């Protein structure tokens, strides 16, 4: 009997230890971002050469210390990150890029960038997750890509 109680106690402890805190309702309600935010994340380039555009993106990201995490040429996706350690906190700036044909005949390419800051404490627990919303970061990146590529849609700036 004592052995049974001990085993029940171990099982209960395991279950409690595993209990996952349910997410708050606000985390499960998805809403579209604003048109302004979407515009900030997007730049249209007057080229249908997505390979060259993605190459220019990679060059700019590398120049800023980012390392590629994932890439899919067919979908025009690049995910890159830049890690840093600040005391006991580890931080990551993640850039996710997606290039897609746009324009009436698909002769232009739309490039959409999202920048995200993440941080973890010494125990590996996530302590920060936030979108970068400073417009200058996005505009600066798009301008550098345009210079790298030598192409920019007239009037897009």
């Amino acid at each position, binding site marked *: *009997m004592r*052995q*049974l109680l001990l*085993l*029940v106690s*171990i*099982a209960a402890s*395991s*279950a409690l*230890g*595993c209990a*996952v805190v349910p*997410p*708050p309702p*606000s*985390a*499960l*309600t*998805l*809403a*579209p*971002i604003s048109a302004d935010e*979407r515009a900030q*994340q997007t730049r249209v380039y007057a080229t249908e050469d997505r390979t060259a555009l993605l190459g220019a993106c990679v060059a700019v990201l590398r120049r800023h210390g980012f390392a590629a*995490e*994932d890439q*899919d040429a*067919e*979908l*025009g*996706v690049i*995910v890159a990150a830049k*890690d840093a350690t600040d005391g006991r906190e*580890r931080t*990551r700036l*993640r850039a*996710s890029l*997606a290039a*897609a044909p746009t324009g009436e005949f698909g002769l232009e390419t739309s490039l*959409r960038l*999202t920048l*995200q800051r*993440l941080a*973890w404490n010494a*125990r*590996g627990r*996530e302590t920060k*997750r*936030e*979108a970068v919303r400073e417009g200058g970061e996005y505009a600066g990146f798009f301008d550098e890509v345009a210079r790298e590529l030598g192409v920019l849609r007239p009037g897009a700036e």
Partner: protein
Amino acid sequence: MNAAPLVASCALALALCGAARADSADGSRAAAEPTPGSLAVAHEFAAPDLLHAQRIAIATLQDLGFALESADAERGVLIASLLDAHPLRLTVSITAKDDATISASVASDYAGASLANLGPAAAFFSAYEAALNPPPELD
């Protein structure tokens, strides 16, 4: 008294616990694979161009405030997590069912633990369907 069933229950609880906490310390597992045992919800849509449908799915995720973590056109798998505040991640699969139909499935997890709540998947499908069938532009 035979304690084998209880021991097996403990092992199962620990195994499930391990699955729910499979993330590495820096969350990098997210880039590779969906959460084990995730509940997926699937829908079919009329869409003759698979690559276009996958691109629309990427744009839909971005419009809902997600950042892409990985994309694989060949497998049709997109993984994205919320940009802000909550560690909510969606694993979206877009594959061809036949020449005119695609199958889309969504699995959600929160902080690495599979979500039974279908709200995020429903929100994605609603936005995705609207993006696949935009209203005609007015002249």
